[in-house]
């Protein structure tokens, strides 16, 4: 049996590769970047929801299972440039900076993931112009390293605002869907900062809080135990506050129905999730349909969310839509199982 191709080395791809190895199959794990771990690794995610355990604690064992297994062939800094359907499986072309290689695989798991929304596209927030307007993925790294300071002057902020749904639920930037994680991650960040630095004031501006399921607990505790402030209303624009030393967040407090203008030392944008570059490329290489949002679409998103509908091709993780790590890991397992069954038939 030829190996099973797993495209993408984030949580979903790692989970699929580890599961295939456990099933006794050979996995060919291809990753565009020079490292495994996907977005969590790339942006140095700090604590992960729901249990607020460090990202390393979650990714570590997964990486260990993959890196320690002789059944998983890892190909880093490698992209897939061509795919050709065989009677059984595919012939694929793998490309690195200086090599091109053709391999035959018996099935494919696409775990190509998401990209964070590029917040520069939401012009009104001045991301890319004002250094102290940062993306929440950058704050993850700061929290991880315990260096929460203003990029402009290296000083500790006294008051931070989170703006939710940046690049999500917004037709003006073309992304009407919900990213599912912006709320919980932002609240988690506010809690982490308040835990370590109670002197920093944390404000969250929201239109809806979607800490669905058991994660609601975090939302409640953030107020009850950590004093995070929530204002119901979106910030419409960020400009320089008087004197230019601070940022002015202007919005409507939609509960009180009145304009609100608050100066902040730092503003954090909860950027949404978009289909990853690899997801878009994979759709083309395997001739798969994408939905209006650009994500891959399972044949039956309710009955079998890992089945592409194209024989031998399976999905896992954020390639089919915004997803949390536990869901991505679960889908990795499901896709591995289905791919294994197909390859063995």
């Amino acid at each position, binding site marked *: 049996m030829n190996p099973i191709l797993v495209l993408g080395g984030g949580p979903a791809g790692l989970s699929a590769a580890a599961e295939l190895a456990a099933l006794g199959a050979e996995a060919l794990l291809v990753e565009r970047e020079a490292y495994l771990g996907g977005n969590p690794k790339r942006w140095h995610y700090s604590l992960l929801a729901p249990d607020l355990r460090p990202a390393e604690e979650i990714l570590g064992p997964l990486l260990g299972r993959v890196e320690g297994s002789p059944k998983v062939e890892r190909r880093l800094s490698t992209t897939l440039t061509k795919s050709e359907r065989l009677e059984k499986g595919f012939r694929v072309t793998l490309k690195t900076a200086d090599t091109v290689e053709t391999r035959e695989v018996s099935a494919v798991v696409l775990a190509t993931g998401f990209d964070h929304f590029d917040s520069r596209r939401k012009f009104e927030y001045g991301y890319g112009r004002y250094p102290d307007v940062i993306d929440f993925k950058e704050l993850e790294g700061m929290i991880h390293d315990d260096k929460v300071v203003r990029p402009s002057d290296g000083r500790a902020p006294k008051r931070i605002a989170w703006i939710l749904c940046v690049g999500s639920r917004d037709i*003006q930037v073309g992304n009407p869907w919900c990213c599912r994680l912006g709320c919980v991650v932002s609240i988690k960040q506010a809690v982490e900062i308040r835990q370590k630095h109670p002197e920093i004031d944390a404000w969250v501006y929201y239109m809806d809080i979607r800490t669905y399921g058991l994660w609601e607990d975090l939302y409640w505790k953030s107020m009850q135990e950590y004093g995070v402030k929530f204002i119901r209303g*979106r910030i*419409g624009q960020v400009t320089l506050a008087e004197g230019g030393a601070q940022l002015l967040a*202007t919005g*409507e407090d*939609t509960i009180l129905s009145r*304009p609100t203008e608050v100066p902040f030392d730092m503003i954090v944008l909860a950027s949404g999730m978009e289909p990853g570059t690899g997801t878009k490329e994979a759709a083309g290489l395997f001739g798969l349909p994408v939905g209006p949002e650009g994500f891959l679409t399972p044949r039956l998103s309710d009955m079998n969310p890992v089945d592409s509908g194209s024989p031998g091709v399976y999905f896992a993780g954020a390639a089919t839509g915004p997803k949390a790590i536990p869901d991505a890991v679960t889908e990795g397992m499901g896709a591995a199982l289905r791919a294994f069954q197909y390859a063995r038939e």
Partner: protein
Amino acid sequence: MSIVAHLPRRVLSLTEEEAASPPVMELTGRRRATSEERTVAETIYAEFRADPRHREFVLGCLNCGECTTGCPAARFYDFSPREMLQIAQNGDATTLWDAMQEKIWACCQCYTCNMRCRFGNDIAGIISVMRELSVIHGLESTRKVLAPFGRSLTLLMTVGTQVSSDMIQPDFFRDWGPFATGSDKVWDVGTDVMRRAIPSDVLHTTRSSWEVSVQTSLELFRIYEETGVLDMLRGLDPDLTEMLVDIIEERREEFEEARDRFRTELAGMHGPVATFMG
């Protein structure tokens, strides 16, 4: 002589009937609609919901408030574009009627809300639809709001510009002109000379923003006649409308005379000059 100069300084006043039945105030300060008003309100509501623009402009609302964030009117009035959109989307005849009395006129039509709206609503546009209906139905409140516009409407309807330099006089728009600088008495030579000091003959006019040819005036008025604008205005202010018709009639005569005169002078005339309203 300026067209507007011989206009009376008109204030659109209440009719005798209206004056005899002043609005009823409730203790809350909110005016109770009369039964006649309720009928009008129902009609307006039906027309509002039936306007094809309603479906196109009002899509839905997440109540995020970004529209209100940049709204200039929201800072100074009891007004918010979010509220207006909610009324347009979910309001009934009474709430629509109430909003049309005063609130619709707070909007600055700057379109900041439209640019920001993450649902893609045309909020400034739907407010304009409400305003149009208030004009068409000649609401008392609308006539009061638009009372100061007699002069500019006359200009607009007859030559198609909005303000003229003869409006900017010490007793009117005092702070618009160079009077504001106090010591500079440049205007001592009079508006006419000041205008002739502008280096384009087309701007040497005081009664309009620029000189508008008679043909252009007539074409404009024809547009107003054929697109229902004149009828809208008639519902709001019949007297003003009749006066406009008279002014245009004079221009039409002027045009005919000139055509006779120039036809004798210009042998090769053709095109719109020869055919227009021929």
